[in-house]
């Protein structure tokens, strides 16, 4: 696994600019838009951004002002199913990109876990309603005894 540690990236001026940020755009389950539609919409905005099409949605990188403007516009396509989050590394950065190294990308497992409940979060945002959950309680000892004795009596 030494390749993962000894990577020496060839960084450009944009990679060193503190004002350049990267955001990931996730499309939740049941969305009314596709990954390709999102990428096309980003291109149609005509902003100076680096746009990458990914399996979960897309990734955009550029000056923070342009990125936030683009996200505001893209959210309008499907406000309840489009989620965004920050990313530290630029798209295709050899220190993180799977194309250059082994194993799943760092952060993938968190993404996988959260994606499982993303559909429920979309539903909660789309149709907000009050829900009450019954608290799970341990079985009472007397009740447990009664059930156990009933079962034993039946066997006899």
């Amino acid at each position, binding site marked *: 696994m030494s390749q993962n540690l000894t990577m020496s990236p060839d960084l450009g001026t944009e990679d060193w600019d503190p004002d350049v940020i*990267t955001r990931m755009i996730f499309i939740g389950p049941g969305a009314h838009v596709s990954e390709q539609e999102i990428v096309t919409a980003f291109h149609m905005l005509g902003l100076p951004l680096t746009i990458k099409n990914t399996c979960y949605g897309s990734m955009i990188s550029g000056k923070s002002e342009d990125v936030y403007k683009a996200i505001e516009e893209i959210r309008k396509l499907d406000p309840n199913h489009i989620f965004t*989050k920050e990313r530290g590394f630029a798209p295709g950065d050899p220190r993180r990109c799977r194309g250059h190294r082994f194993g799943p990308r760092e952060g993938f497992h968190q993404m996988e876990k959260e994606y499982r409940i993303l559909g429920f*979060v979309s539903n909660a945002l789309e149709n*907000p309603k009050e829900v009450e959950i019954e608290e799970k309680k341990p079985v009472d000892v007397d009740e447990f005894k009664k059930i156990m004795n009933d079962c034993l009596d039946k066997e006899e």
Partner: protein
Amino acid sequence: MVKVAIYPPNSLILADLIERKGHTPLVLQKQIRQKIKDPEIDSPPMNITEEDPIKGLKYAAIEVPSGVRGRMAIIGPLIDEAEAAIVVDGAPYGFGCIGCARTNELSIFLLRNKDIPVLEVTYPTNQDETYVMVNDINNFIDSLEETKEEE
């Protein structure tokens, strides 16, 4: 606009729900970006420098392992900046990005002790629990707006 610390600090759902309401989530990715864009770091893939465990001394004692102090050098400034916090409880083992149970405990302890409004939500496993979590977070953020207006 309120700066809200979240735990786990790289959470997509928590950060997004806060941003939807126009507030700033304090996420770890911003700290990592600062690190990797720092021209003073000689070997960018190794994001921890020897200075980090020293910075971590502000949050943890010298007896604490250097791994915890190194991590606290990155997470600590987020906790310092926080004006409110949302913490997920009861998550399965390995949830979150820290990779260190003691750092998780210390960070949550510091957030709870900071005299800021803290919301603790339970890790949801089904639709009803997710509804409760989203409602709780939205109500909490709305209450932050009200207290901010009162001030």
